[in-house]
């Protein structure tokens, strides 16, 4: 019984630990898989999502940064968390669209390294602008009232309510995106566009819009991750960069472009990490996830669910 409880706790903790990875990785993966665009600014979109979430949710006092120096004491419009959960994805979707249109598009034909350079540059710019304006200090991001505090679950016992919410939101969004990509003509067009853009257009299909949408969706997922992940830890300008490496790791372990792969990989990493911690090997938990990643990639170089041919 206790063993069962332990296992279930590990799984549930692993789920929630992996959920943020999954949200970020799915967005990154569809952008990388379908548009062949290496987006090092994905973490910055997460960052934007988190700060936008703060801005929409409440009033954040300012004590540092340029805005404070100019005498502005607080920022925020105080619409509450639910509003943030709805508005942030929309806004970040639009940011994603602008990014596709004005940045990514001109880099589709250029080498990965150029894409990395420009998106990494953008990420640094976003991060440093936020820091310059709002200060570098961490801000607490309050959990939504309706989801704060622990909830009592059978067998497991107490579990933070909001973390269940994170799992649920992630599941719904990921299933939705999966259905869109796998079961609709939209998905087919995007897949075909990945393979041979010009030929798709020669068939009379306009691709610019599907690309915009894919980029927008990928971005919006990162934005949502920022809003739902913000209350798990505090928000500061560095959280975006910190998420980048685990997110890429998840994408590649799962197989580039494979949504279900990203999910499996995210959950595996999350669960392993939690399992190492809860069984007393905490010191090895970081080494552990990288070791797992290495082993998976050595056994299946294309990732868990990746296809045999080189994608990117």
């Amino acid at each position, binding site marked *: 019984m206790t063993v069962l409880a332990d296992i279930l706790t590990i799984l549930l903790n692993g789920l929630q630990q992996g959920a943020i990875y999954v949200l970020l990785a799915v967005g990154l993966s569809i952008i990388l898989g379908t548009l062949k665009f290496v987006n090092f600014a994905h973490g910055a979109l997460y960052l934007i999502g988190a700060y936008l979430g703060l801005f929409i949710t409440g009033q954040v006092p300012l004590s540092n940064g340029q805005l404070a120096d100019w005498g502005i004491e607080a920022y925020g419009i105080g619409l509450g968390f639910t509003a943030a959960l709805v508005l942030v994805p929309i806004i970040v979707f639009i940011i994603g669209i602008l990014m596709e249109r004005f940045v990514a598009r001109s880099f589709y034909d250029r080498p990965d390294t150029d894409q990395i350079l420009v998106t990494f540059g953008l990420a640094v710019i976003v991060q440093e602008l936020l820091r310059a304006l709002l200060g570098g200090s961490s801000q607490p991001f309050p959990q939504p009232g309706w989801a704060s505090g622990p909830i009592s679950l059978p067998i497991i016992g107490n579990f933070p309510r909001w973390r269940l919410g994170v799992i649920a939101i992630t599941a719904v969004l990921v299933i939705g995106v999966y259905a869109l990509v796998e079961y609709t*003509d939209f998905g*087919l*067009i995007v*897949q*075909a566009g990945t*393979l*041979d853009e*010009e*030929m*798709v*257009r*020669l*068939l*009379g*299909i*306009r*691709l610019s819009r599907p690309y915009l949408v894919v980029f927008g969706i990928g971005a919006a997922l990162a934005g949502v991750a920022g809003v739902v992940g913000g209350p798990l830890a505090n928000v500061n300008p560095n959280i975006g960069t910190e998420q980048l490496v685990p997110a890429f790791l998840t994408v590649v372990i799962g197989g580039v472009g494979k949504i279900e792969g990203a999910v499996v990989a995210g959950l595996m990493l999350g669960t392993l990490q939690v399992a190492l911690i809860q069984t007393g090997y905490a010191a090895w938990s970081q080494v552990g996830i990288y070791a797992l990643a290495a082993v998976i990639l050595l056994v299946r170089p294309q990732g868990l669910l990746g*296809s045999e*041919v080189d994608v990117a």
Partner: protein
Amino acid sequence: MTLLDVEAIDGYYGESHIIQDLSLSVDDGEITALLGRNGAGKTSTLRCISGATPPDVRSGRIRFDGVDITDEPPEDIAVRGISLVPEERRVFSDLTVAENLHLADTVRNKANTLGRDLDFRDDGMSTSDIYEYFPRLDERRTQKAGTLSGGEQQMLAIARALHQSTDLLMLDEPYEGLAPQIIEAVENAIRRISEAGTTILLVEQNAVAAMKIADRCYVLDRGQVVFEGPAEELQADQETRDKYLGV
């Protein structure tokens, strides 16, 4: 009546002037052949017409059905009713045969083209007809196109163009890689859709094969038209054939 009218176009790859002051016209219902050696500019001409860049067209006009399409993007030109069997097949390798065909499905494309001027008919060849012409594709519906044999991919490329709603079908070396008896089948298909009213622009290296079904011929050399006229005339013009076609 002239369906396609190419007027003195110049096309460039970067700085190299590939299409030089080229004019041609294709009449409604006709089978027109575009002939010439390797590198004469045949494929480039088709690319200009279909709106694919490069080459970029720096001067001249291309009119289709009276509409100036010179500067239109390829997807709009396709929707107007021009379909292309490209050089090198260009099938979507990771998609199945059925999915490849589905992408050319005009009804679905219509949905995707909302907001554009859509006066085209939904009269592409039906999938059942296509599978009848190419039983091999029928067998391989769920196979990924990239794993098809060379000839099978060529069949798929042709099938895909036939499935599009089309007034003008442009074929770039459609017989390449096909076994003799399939070549016959393709010839038959071309004749049949031509009889049904579709206009054909056929690019070929092999003048003999092309002249068999063409009404009119153009011969290109270094991006310029060096001969135009009825197929019989070219048949008779030994000098042109020696000089520009090597047959």
